[in-house]
């Protein structure tokens, strides 16, 4: 076969790929080559540019500079079709499967074998016959007609890989494929990777699990701040070496020192178990007047913890104490009446009503306060909205402006205005500055500090290393649903946070 004879040139060559957005450099001259039958590990912190790079390869994002050479052909930018036709396939972190269809139908979706004729009926027998060899190759233990809903996560990952193979994939890009797998499932997946390599398929393996990366890849490429900062081959691939490469940028000092030392415990979380990680109880104490950073990699279970504490999600077990009193929180209203507020991660879906005005958004959680009897007093709610608009410097034409027309930073300020109107005791910020411009960011940091100085307990979930190190007084790091360690300010460093975030203990 031709494929085996022309092994000399690499299958994929990226040359000086850059991608800039207004104000942000996502990729800065990235060069990367992947040979046929090579497994390349791609690692980097949250925000290092991995996702953007993958989007470039998938044809979703057009690079601002650089060239892409796939299988000997040069492209200034790939289109989605280019990517598919040249054999680049993705196995996504959040699986893209139709769980109402069976395994075979998923693999050949859009390419079903048909009986001839105008009705375009699907030939189910041929469908299953076509899929069986692919499944055999991967050594899976389910039949082509198994409904996807009945498959385990690992089986679904394998199904995604089978789908990639059915497209005659020659480069499979896997984004955190093992994050939801058990140990034996992971081992199985890794052995499949080895078989693919033997067939000459190239693989880019993105993972935060450095031990897995170590065992399965030929080479590791490390991204940081949109740049390739190094690569490791063979024996030099060790978790310590990888961490050393991932960190090491200059962090701007964002720290605003507190005016008062932290006070008594405001929120005590004991043995909390969430549905996302039912086996890992979490305990955490948050004191008045402090900003406690909750660091960790994306998917470490921090948002799930916050949602369970706030009462949006069900908790499986665990108790809460607020300022020394045992409390039961069944729904957000219970948390709100006790002065425990959440600024959610997904502000468009959970934080705001996009086509409500500033006024309507700000007064929503506390509408009774602005009501005379059962009726809302427009004057009262508008007065407060106006006050909050000035206090938080929300840049909108007036308080009747719809929230959805504003920029991310101003939208976030509206979410904050909701809670600041009603005397917070504890506020949980979940990714408070995601997608927000630099100016609004520093305003929000100052605001968090002012709150803390006024005696409010602040819990800040952040995946942004610079932010979590720069803003927190103290830090808890989560890894796969459990707290892997606490850090005081004198031990804050990217190295320490990352060590804990990937599940290694500090020495």
């Amino acid at each position: 076969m031709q494929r085996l004879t022309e092994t000399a040139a690499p299958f994929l060559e990226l040359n000086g790929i850059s991608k800039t957005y207004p104000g942000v450099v996502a990729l800065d001259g990235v060069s990367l080559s992947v040979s046929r039958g090579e497994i390349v590990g791609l690692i980097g912190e949250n925000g290092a540019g991995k996702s953007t790079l993958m989007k470039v390869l998938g044809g979703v994002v057009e690079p601002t500079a650089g060239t892409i050479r796939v299988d000997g052909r040069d492209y200034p930018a790939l289109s989605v079709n280019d990517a598919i036709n040249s054999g680049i396939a993705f196995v996504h972190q959040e699986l893209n499967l139709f769980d109402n269809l069976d395994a075979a139908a998923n693999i050949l979706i859009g390419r079903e074998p048909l009986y001839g004729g105008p009705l375009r009926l699907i030939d189910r027998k041929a469908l299953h016959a076509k899929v069986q060899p692919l499944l055999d190759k991967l050594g899976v233990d389910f039949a082509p007609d198994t409904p996807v809903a009945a498959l385990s996560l690992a089986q679904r990952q394998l199904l995604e890989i089978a789908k990639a193979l059915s497209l005659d994939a020659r480069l499979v890009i896997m984004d955190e494929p093992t994050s939801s797998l058990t140990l034996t499932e992971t081992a199985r997946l890794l052995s499949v990777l080895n078989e693919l390599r033997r067939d000459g398929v190239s693989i880019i393996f993105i993972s935060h699990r450095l031990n897995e990366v170590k065992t399965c890849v030929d080479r590791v490429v490390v991204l940081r701040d949109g740049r390739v900062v190094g690569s490791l081959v063979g024996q030099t691939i060790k978790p310590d070496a990888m961490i050393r490469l991932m960190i090491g940028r200059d962090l701007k000092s964002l720290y605003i020192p507190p005016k008062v030392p932290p006070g008594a415990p405001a929120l005590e979380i004991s043995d909390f178990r969430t549905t996302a990680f039912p086996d890992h109880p979490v305990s955490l104490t948050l004191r008045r007047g402090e900003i406690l950073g909750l660091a960790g990699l994306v998917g470490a279970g921090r948002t799930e913890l916050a949602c369970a504490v706030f009462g949006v999600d069900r908790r499986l077990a665990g108790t809460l104490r607020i300022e020394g009193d045992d409390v039961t929180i069944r729904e957000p209203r219970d948390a709100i009446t006790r002065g425990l507020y959440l600024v959610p991660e997904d502000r468009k879906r959970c934080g705001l009503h996009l086509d409500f005005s500033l006024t309507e958004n700000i007064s929503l959680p506390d509408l009774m306060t602005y009501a005379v009897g059962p009726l809302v007093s427009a004057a009262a709610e508008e007065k407060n909205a106006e006050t909050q608009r000035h206090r938080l410097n929300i840049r909108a034409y007036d308080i009747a402006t719809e929230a959805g027309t504003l920029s991310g930073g101003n939208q976030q300020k509206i979410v904050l205005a909701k809670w600041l109107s009603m005397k917070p005791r504890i506020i949980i910020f979940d990714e408070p500055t995601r997608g927000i411009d630099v100016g609004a960011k520093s305003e929000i940091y100052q605001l968090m500090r002012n709150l803390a100085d006024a005696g409010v307990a602040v819990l800040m979930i952040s995946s942004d290393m610079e932010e979590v190190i720069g803003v927190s007084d103290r830090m808890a790091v989560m890894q796969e649903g459990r707290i892997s360690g606490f850090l005081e300010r004198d031990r804050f460093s990217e190295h320490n946070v990352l060590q804990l975030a990937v599940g290694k203990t500090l020495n």
Partner: protein
Amino acid sequence: MLKKDLGLFLLILVVGAVVAFLNPRFLSPLNLANTANLIGLFGLFSLGEGFVIITGGIDLSVGSIFALLGVIFINLLVDYSMPWPIAVLIIVIAGILLGAIHGFLVTKVRMQPFVVTLCGLLIYRGVARWYTDDGTAGFEFGQKFPALELLTTGRSFATDTFTGIPNSFIAFVVVAAIMGVVLHRSVFGRYLFAVGKNEEAARYSGIRSNAIIAAAYVISGGLAGISAIYLAMYTRSISPASHGNFYELYAIAAAVLGGCSLRGGEGSVMGIVLGAILLQVLQNLVNLLGIPSSLNFAVMGGVILIGVIADMQLVRYRAYKANEKKRAGVPVLGAAAPGKN
């Protein structure tokens, strides 16, 4: 929202003017009073339907509720010789209970509103027919309830030259005014919009969305109970196989014409009122212009279709205009940076 209502109001005026021009009888006091009566009868329960639609749900059961509660109402008055105020109270409470059941099934059992109220539509109709052995329930000859009749089918402000305003219409206006305050001025009304628009964000703001949604079904059920009495007094006899058939569709049509989005979160009482008026004017148009009455539904459907399409075009045009204004140099405030990864 005001602009939308204004457009509908103008449409009613135009249709009215055309009909009046083609057949002057349209403006005769008798015809106006009859039309007002029908507007009142159909408008009452359209308001409740509108509330349910604003939560993102739908209530298909109202027509069958009229049949079931109607035959029970007549039964209570005729066979049990119950004093009418007590019978009225029982019927309204029964409507509220049915609404509460719908609300419970939608919020707690998490069934889809369409399915819940479709089952209601079938069940209540069936029970009503069984209740009377598929016979017609009616008042006995000469049986009179002067006070009740005055409230439901009577007229007010009648003089020698003026036929008077139907009390059903007055009741509709009063209920609409109350509902308007509830929807547009009260805490509950704000919550209703918040839940209909984005239930998730409403929950994060501490709103008990289940209670709000259930309350909308209760209101719809209660108004259906009141309407059942008005309709029973209007027809004075009820054949449960046909009484109130398709009436839920009039309510949905009025709400949609009035600007309620079936996706939830949008609508106004003024819009629903105007929608209900337009539907009855169209009915009247079919009668007065000698259009075969079999075409009744076709005319209604055609007008709704054209109305909604025109409204969508208008919204699109306005968005386009607003965009142009933005491009023409109104400063863009605090441009957002794209999110990392």
